[in-house]
Each structure stands twice: as C-alpha cells, then as structure tokens.
C-alpha cells in the first residue's frame, strides 16, 4: 500500500512538472519558429490577486466573414494581413487550414462569440498604472496605432510584445515614470 502511494505520488509529481515544462517548451518553440503578426487591440487595467498587475486587452480579431456556429468548441481562424500591416481573422472553420497561418480559438459552450486567445498582458505592478496612462493617451490621439505582436506557430500563439506606434509599452511606461 505504501509502495502504491509512493508510485502515485511520483506519477502525480511528474505530471505537474511535465505540464509546467510543456507550457514553457511550447511557448519557446513558438517564439523561435513562429511567424510575427500585428493584431490591433484596446484595453484597461484591473488587478488580479494571483498574478499581479496586468493590462486587460481586448483583441479586435472578430472574423471578417460571419462565422457559422460550430458545435465543437475548437475552431480555426485563418489570419490575413491588411494594407496597414495589421492582422485580422478572415474566417472561422472547423478544421485547420492546409496553408497559411491560423489561430486555434475556443467557442464558449454558450453564446456565439468565441474567446480571444489573449486577454491579459502582465506587467510589474509599478509599471502597469503608467502603462495604462500611456495606452489611454495613445487611444485619445488620432492615428496612433496600438498593436499586440504575436508569434504564431501551428495555430498556437505567444505574445511577443505590446507596442504603441512601434515602441514597446514597457519602454514607454518606464519613460513616463521617470518624467
């Protein structure tokens, strides 16, 4: 009985380590081999006791063509890039496209809108309020472009950076903090 408990404990521990490591490895592979895309965003800054401060981002990636309500939760959105070099989801399909970049998205069980792949951009709690101010200013300004830089590899995406007019938000927030 004791042996069985130890074996179960070892397997459970390995599973924890595997899950954590798998998340890291998959993200690193995507960052190394993925294709970059600039997605337009909008955002604000709430607080989460578990994960410090972050900018809650709203990705503007709703399909250009009306999606068909699919019964399966997992759908694939093929990515197109417009003349301003901004990425958009063109269409959702139940199967992964054979060519071109795509994002794997989840439909919620109830409702018709799919879940955006990213809703948070984590920052240091000192920088986040400054970043929020910088973002708010950028949105007020005409023609300013706020984008989320994503690396996409085989449907999986990782955030590379959040940029305002081509400059990283961390850099802008630090500058604003010094002023």
């Amino acid at each position, binding site marked *: 009985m004791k042996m069985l408990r*130890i074996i*179960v404990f070892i397997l459970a521990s390995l599973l924890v380590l595997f899950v954590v490591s798998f998340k890291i490895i998959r*993200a690193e592979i995507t960052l190394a081999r993925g294709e970059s895309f600039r997605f337009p965003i909008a955002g604000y800054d709430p607080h989460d006791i*578990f994960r410090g401060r972050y900018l809650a981002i709203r990705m503007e990636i709703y399909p250009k063509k009306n999606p068909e309500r699919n019964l399966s939760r997992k759908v694939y959105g093929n990515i197109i890039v417009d003349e301003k070099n901004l990425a958009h989801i063109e269409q959702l399909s139940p199967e992964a496209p054979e060519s071109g970049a795509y994002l794997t998205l989840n439909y919620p069980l109830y409702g018709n809108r799919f879940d955006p792949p990213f809703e948070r951009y984590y920052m240091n709690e000192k920088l986040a309020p400054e970043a929020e101010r910088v973002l708010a200013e950028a949105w007020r300004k005409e023609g300013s472009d706020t984008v989320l830089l994503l690396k996409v590899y085989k449907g999986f995406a*990782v955030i590379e950076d959040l940029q305002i007019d081509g400059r990283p938000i961390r850099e802008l927030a630090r500058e604003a903090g010094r002023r």
Partner: protein
Amino acid sequence: MTKISRRFVEELKRELPQWVAEGTVTEEAADRLRVHYETLGEESRSGLMRHVETMFRVLCALLLGVGVILLISHNWDMLSPAWRMVLSYGPLLASLGFGAWVMVKDKRSPAWCEPAAILIGASAASAIAIVSQLYHTLGRLEDFLFVWLLLLLPFLYLFRSFALTVIYTIGAVAMCCMTSSFPRGVCFFLAVLPMLCILARPAASAWRKFFGRLMIVAFLGLIWGLGSSFHHTSDTNIWFSCLVLFGAMSVGGAELARREERQWNVFLVLGGGACLVAAFILSSISFRCYWGRGYQAMEWGFLILNLLLLAAMGVVACFRRFRLQWVFPLFLPVLILCSGIVPVTVKLGANIGLAIFGILLMRQGFRSRRPGRINFGMLVLAILIYIRFVSTGNILLMGTSFIGLGLAVGIISVVISRKMRKLEAAK
C-alpha cells in the same frame, strides 16, 4: 473514547475525599479513580498539543504558500526569464521534495500531511502563474483553475488534507460560477466529493465532521442552484432542482441521524429547514411548467438526475418508518411535477401540506408530551394564517386569529408543563 476535560479531573480530585468520607467509595477505589482520570487527562492534554502543533504547521504552510504566490504576483521584470524559471521551479521542486519525504517516511499524521499538501498546492499555483506571466497565457481564471485543480487531484487523496480539500472545493465551485466552465466545475466537485464524504463520515472528529457536512450542503446547494439557473429556462425547473436537492439532504440526514443515534445533523436541519421555507414561498406562487421544451443535453441530464434522486428518496421512505420530516421533501417535488398538468396544484398543495404538517406536529407533540413540537406546529399554522391573511388584506381577521392562536399556545404550554410536573412527581 470520551475526551476528559482538565476541569472535570480537578473537580473529581476535589470531590474524592468527600466521597471516601461519606463511604460512597473506598480509599482504594478513590486511588484507582484518581490514577485513571489523571492518565486520561494527560492523554487528552497531549492530544490537544498535537492539534495545536498541526494548526501551527498548517498556518506556517499557508503563510509560506501565500507568500510565494504574492512574491510571484509582483512580476519581477528586472529578472531574466531564466531566473524567473528558477523562481517557478524552485518552490515547486522543494515542496514536491517535502511531499516525497512525507510519503517515504509514511507520516500519516495531519501535522505532516496538511502542510505538505498545502505547500504543493501553493507552489503548483505559483508555477502555473509564473509561466502565465512570462508568456501572457492562461488569461482567464477558469483556464488557470482548470489546470491547477486537475494537477492537484491526486495529491488531495494522497495526503487527505482537510485544508486542501476546502481550497479545492472552493476552486471547483468558483469554476461552477463561471457559465462557460460550469460542466468542468461540476466534474471537479464530483471528484472532491468522496474526500468531503471522508471528512464528513460519522467516525471523523466533531469539527471535521461539521465542516465537511456543512461544505457538502452549501456547495451542493450552490451548484444545483447555479446549474438550474444557468441552463434551465423556467423558474419551475429551478424550484424542482432545489427542492429535490434539499429533500434528498433532509431524507439522507434523517437516515444518518438514525445510524448515528442522534436527533439532528447539518443535512437534516438545513435540508428540512429549506424545504419548509420553500413550502411557505410556494404557498403563494402559482406557475405552470413546460417540461422538456427546448431542453439541451445539460437540462435533460439535470432532470434525469433529479428524478433519480426523487425515486431514491421514495425507496428510502418505503423501507423506513414514516417520519413527519419527510412530508415536504417527498411531497413538494411531486407537486411541481404535477403542475405541468394543473397549474394551481403547487399553491393548493403547499397550503394543504403546511396545514396538515402543523396539525400533525401538534398531535405528535401532544402524544409524546413535547411542548417544543406543539409550539412549532402552532408556529407553522400561525405563519400560514399570516401569509394567507396578508394576501387578503383583512387585518381585523388576522389580528383575531393571532390572539386566538396566542391564547391557545399559552394554555397548551401551561397544561403540558403541569402534566409533566405531575409525572415527574409521580416518579
């Protein structure tokens, strides 16, 4: 074994010389009693010390765990990703190492198992959180909870930790509160339910039993209510679900009380109380249900589960001696089922049921000479009269009825008390 308080031992030691002097016990018997109770007192004190020790270790593990989570939530921007990996793997490996030591040494005492389980839970949460921070993934709380709860499940049963069970149950219910992850939350709750039942078993210590049972009642109620309100389109379905659940608690609680040879337990009190309150509310509501219209898989699942529970209650009631507490648990869900045919059934049935329940309770009180039951029966009737007259708006009639009932209660109480005093005097 009954726990011996220090005060009792002290009082006994004070009383013993007097008992010896009176000749109630011999000198030798007094010595034996003194030795016996002093030993028991010592054992009780060492048991208390063990509890204190466990509490301090649990507190220590909780503080450490929360500290690690807070440190990670700071988001160490100045550290390189490699260092942040160390921050994520370090506490996880350390707590897994501590857990492995507890397992290998076969330490089953809560003083070791509780902190090991809490530390593993906290470090797993922090490891997942730091990876989320690094790559900005798992943005939604339900995704984070899903991964965390899934990974913690084996540790929950390996360490049988009370604190981790509480945290796990809260996590599962939090998932249930989010519409999109309700089915997954229910699965996690079902996964933790055996552990809650282990905590709530009759042989467990009193406070574990109480909290285990209270959590089962509270969270089952919450999940049932949420599930019904998320997925059912009409009020009738919510009423039906909740009444079946409270009814099952009440009947199950009565069965448990019989086995434990006690009169009350949390299931019986809360389940029975909820059924009675529901009966009063239903006595003023009239509705018609539309069973099966526009149902999806979840609605059908809930309906079948509720019908199975109702059938199980019926089976228990058939094989046991009829109890008055079973009137509403069995009667109200059936009335709601019937309301699909005749809409007024529920209102009418609840009123008649309450009146019969009040009268039967009083009758039982008279027969067993229990003033408490008689008064409770009176109270049920009084509330029913009040509710009915409030709806008619006849204050004069209501006032007269209350004076009549009040006088009746007073007279009955006096008569019963006199009878009981006479019986005691006769003994």
